[in-house]
């Protein structure tokens, strides 16, 4: 994959798609029929960011299993990188969700299932980094982190399901098992933004993995000269 597409090309493709998605959202997609008006346009970023965050955590889950099976450091690095990016995307989900909530319902925060899930996910994956920071030995740190990443990812859908026991919130349900609930003109903008956001995640993971590799090499070199 490293040779197939260069990192700048990925960033450029993501940028083009995200800008196109945004332009389509405003110029092509119809205004929302409900009272939300323009504020609904944030949906074209908010939902793709949410899905990308979950994708990043999914990657960390797979990386954690692969690490436990192989004890190969590269999977640990992938775990760290994808969780860090997933966390950033989760914070963006909450930020965009709060902005939308304020515009549409007049409140910054509503304890509804999805927002609450992302709030808990933020705590959960912040704890991942706290855990890493208190284990000195490298292999042990990676092993514990992998165990925690597996448990944490299993907990995400469980949390989402549990928050349904709370009194219902105001969040619209767009994508259900019955279909997307979106007309084609809306879906296209949404789909392009989603592909753009996914590419952005892949590009960021690629870049961060490179940085982590270099960091490890510097640490090894320092160690080898007794530093």
């Amino acid at each position, binding site marked *: 994959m490293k040779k197939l597409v260069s990192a700048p090309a990925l960033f450029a493709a993501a940028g083009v798609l995200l800008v196109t998605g945004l332009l389509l959202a405003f110029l092509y997609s119809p205004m929302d029929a409900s009272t939300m008006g323009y504020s609904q346009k944030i949906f074209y970023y908010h939902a793709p960011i949410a899905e990308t965050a979950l994708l990043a955590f999914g990657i960390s889950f797979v990386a954690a299993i692969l690490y436990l099976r192989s004890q190969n450091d590269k999977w640990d690095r992938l775990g760290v990188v994808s969780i860090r990016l997933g966390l950033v995307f989760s914070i963006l989900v909450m930020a965009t969700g709060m902005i939308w909530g304020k515009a549409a319902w007049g409140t910054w925060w509503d304890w509804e299932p999805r927002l609450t899930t992302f709030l808990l996910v933020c705590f959960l994956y912040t704890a991942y980094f706290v855990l890493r920071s*208190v284990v000195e030995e490298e292999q042990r740190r990676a092993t514990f982190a992998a165990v925690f990443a597996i*448990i944490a990812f299993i907990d995400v859908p469980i949390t989402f399901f549990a928050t349904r026991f709370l009194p219902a919130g105001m969040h619209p349900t767009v994508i259900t098992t019955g279909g997307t609930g979106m007309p084609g003109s809306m879906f296209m903008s949404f789909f392009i933004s989603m592909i753009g956001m996914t590419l952005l995640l892949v590009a960021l993971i690629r870049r961060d993995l490179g940085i982590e590799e270099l960091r490890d090499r510097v640490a090894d070199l320092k160690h080898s000269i007794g530093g």
Partner: protein
Amino acid sequence: MTGWRQFMAILRKDLIRELRTREMIISMILFVLLAMVIFHYAFGVKEDVDLTYFTGGMLWVTFIFAMLLGLNRSFAQEKDERCLDGLLLCPVDRVTIFFAKTAGNLIFLLIIQVVAVPVFTLFFVHRGYGSDIVLFVVVLLLADVGICALGTLLATISMNTRSRDLLLPIIFLPLIVPLLIAATAATTTIFATGASFGVLGTRLLFLLGFDAVFMVAAYGTYDFAIGE
């Protein structure tokens, strides 16, 4: 020695150790009673306020924090006295250690619940729920298994780190929130309005699913969590 006998041996060791000192159980029970007094002053802001609706939440918050105390204590002893090294040197499957430790913690949690539930009920619940007692016990047991399984796995990880008891709440609490939500919702329904197995069906199934999922997850990862 078969797995079952190993399990019983480790469990018996933990129980005997606790019965000799009683430091964990006594501090957990004291903590629960103190929490009750604190909740009374925190929520009883008006003379005639009915706390029935809040009692489920108070109980589960108390149990989870009491469990944190207990988990830290039980593993600190293992680590400080190097008892765990001895245990790991024995030809015992790591998973057997996990199940025995979980069972031990479950027994301690049940003991504090036997004290806490009547006291909380006496002070806060203004409605008899005698007819739902079986249902309530089922909720308690299902939630307890989840708390102890997840707690034991995470306490094993945290005791092997630099900050030990500081780390445990940070990794344990966000993971246990879904269970807390379901258990609180079920308990509150029982206390406030009364319920049946049919009414609480989804919540009970959820708790059962939570227990099963994390038991399996712990089964698969405990070897790595306990270290060499």
